[in-house]
């Protein structure tokens, strides 16, 4: 390569590369977020591949091996009251819990973004009514609402995901609404309007891309919240139903054996805490990385 280069189309792509890496560099500088990504990767990999590596099936009942403490033979995390291998159950439960968390996040973020963008762009009466509905939903303790809904419907992993999404879209709606409000009078929106773009086009093509940063951050934090909510309802017996394991329902029977077999409570609880903490760390890191102002501090 000669030292003098003629500006070529490559510069443009380099520029986006450079910009990308700046966000990435800010993210990598956030040590906790990097730890979070590492922990989630390990958790996901062990939940996906773990069950194939273990000698036990998650449903295999061995009554001779009931209440085996961790590190008994091949039972690395011990066994439960039916002699089922906890490690095998933990990994399979992780698949359910992480999937429920992820899809609940997708649904609630979509719903919250939709409501927020309409409320923010329309403003006026429509906006006021929509945002008051958001406030009304926030007035219910979400666990009460979640349990009431879960008790009324037929619990399946899909329905649990739906009702978790129905009780956790409000934060996203608020964030998107505030973001859209702050940019809807800007020139590029006026330009789009004077060009005769349809409202739906303006909302999706002009406004949404400008709010994508906060949406990603809120979405990451919603995964954490959804995993927690699944754990709460399943622990209380109204979420994912056995024999399908989830991190929450593994803890369901743990309290009565707390004295005899504390590992029944400790193992799934640690998994939940690790997953939720990681997503919270990642969300925090993304907030710093996506906010251009954080370089100025």
């Amino acid at each position, binding site marked *: 390569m000669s030292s003098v280069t003629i500006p070529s189309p490559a510069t443009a792509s380099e520029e986006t590369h450079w910009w990308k890496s700046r966000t990435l560099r800010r993210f990598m500088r956030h040590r906790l977020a990097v730890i979070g990504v590492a922990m989630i990767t390990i958790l996901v990999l062990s939940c996906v591949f773990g069950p194939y590596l273990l000698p036990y099936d998650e449903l295999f009942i061995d009554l001779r091996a009931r209440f085996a403490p961790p590190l008994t033979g091949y039972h690395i995390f011990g066994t439960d009251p039916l002699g089922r291998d906890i490690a095998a159950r933990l990994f399979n439960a992780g698949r359910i819990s992480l999937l429920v968390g992820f899809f609940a996040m997708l649904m609630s973020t979509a719903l919250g973004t939709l409501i927020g963008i309409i409320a923010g762009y329309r403003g006026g009466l429509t906006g006021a009514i929509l945002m008051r509905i958001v406030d009304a939903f926030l007035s219910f303790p979400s666990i009460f609402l979640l349990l009431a809904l879960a008790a009324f419907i037929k619990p399946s992993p899909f329905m649990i995901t739906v009702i978790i999404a129905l009780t956790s879209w409000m934060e996203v709606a608020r964030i998107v609404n505030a973001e859209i409000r702050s940019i809807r009078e800007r020139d590029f929106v006026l330009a789009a309007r004077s060009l005769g773009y349809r409202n739906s086009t303006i909302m999706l093509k002009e406004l949404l891309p400008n709010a994508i940063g906060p949406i990603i951050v809120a979405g990451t934090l919603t995964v954490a919240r959804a995993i927690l909510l699944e*754990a709460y309802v399943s622990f209380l017996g109204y979420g994912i139903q056995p024999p399908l394991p989830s991190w929450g329902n593994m803890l369901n029977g743990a309290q009565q054996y707390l004295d005899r077999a504390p590992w029944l409570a400790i193992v799934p609880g640690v998994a939940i805490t690790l997953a939720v903490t990681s997503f919270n760390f990642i969300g925090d890191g993304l907030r710093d990385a996506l906010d251009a102002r954080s370089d100025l501090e």
Partner: protein
Amino acid sequence: MLSYIVSRLLQSLVLLLLVSIIGFAVLNLAPGGPLSQYALTPGMTQETMDRIAHQMGLDRPLPIQYLDWIWRLLQGDWGKSYRDQLPVLQIISSHLFATLLLMGTSMVISIAVGTWIGVRGATKRYSIFDYTATVGAMVALSIPTFWFGLVAIYVFALRLKWLPAGNMYTVGDGSFMDYATHLILPSLVLALVDIAVWSRYMRTATLDVINQDFVRTARAKGLSERAVLMTHVLRNALIPMITLAGLQLPTILGGALVTETVFTWPGMGRLFLDSLGYHDYPVVMGLLMFSAILVLVGSLIADILVAFVDPRVRLG
């Protein structure tokens, strides 16, 4: 001031209306709607069901049913429990004290500890203490409350045997000390999340105040650092915290439900779960509405308090 209170009151009424519509929608989601109780009775025919539906006015259009429901709600007729035929409002109020005791204690703990951590973190910014508090708060927000409760029971009740594992008092005792020892574990467990939230916001609020001119003036007057902190910084930093306390109410109430379950605490949360188990929908619905009203009233009080302490709010 009066006009502020009136407008804030009207806002709450609008919210209450929306809350009641959501509540009514949930009620009608129940399989078989409010009739589900009768559907389980053996030998029930469709004819009898229809007659009961007519008697209960369930064959009328939904908006009329809603108006009827809300009218009775306003008059204090919240229906009767399927389980023991007692009025719903009476059952709820008999469980209210336990929940308020737990929530109140936990709030006092979290405000005291959270304020201390937040102010210390702000005055010693980027110190090891500040960093530990930041990471600790994020971890604390990620621990499932019920699991933390189980761990606390295992360590302090089962292993160390320092504190009781559950219930509000020992049968036959019920002295002040007895209540107090039973209260320690659940209120600390419930406070964990709130300490985390409170300390984060307190840190930010303190940082906002600490660099303002009147604080510099106070220092320039020669006041001791302690006096500056207590009278000038803390007083101003605590104002936005009143609003936060109101906003945190739904979280604390939800946390109380889970904590009460783990610690067999005889409050509204346990009542809610027991009623769910018995398909006692009038009580479930009553509690859902009651908790929302509690939250609305709480945040209304918080906002009015803020307006009293901070003239900027009522004038702006």
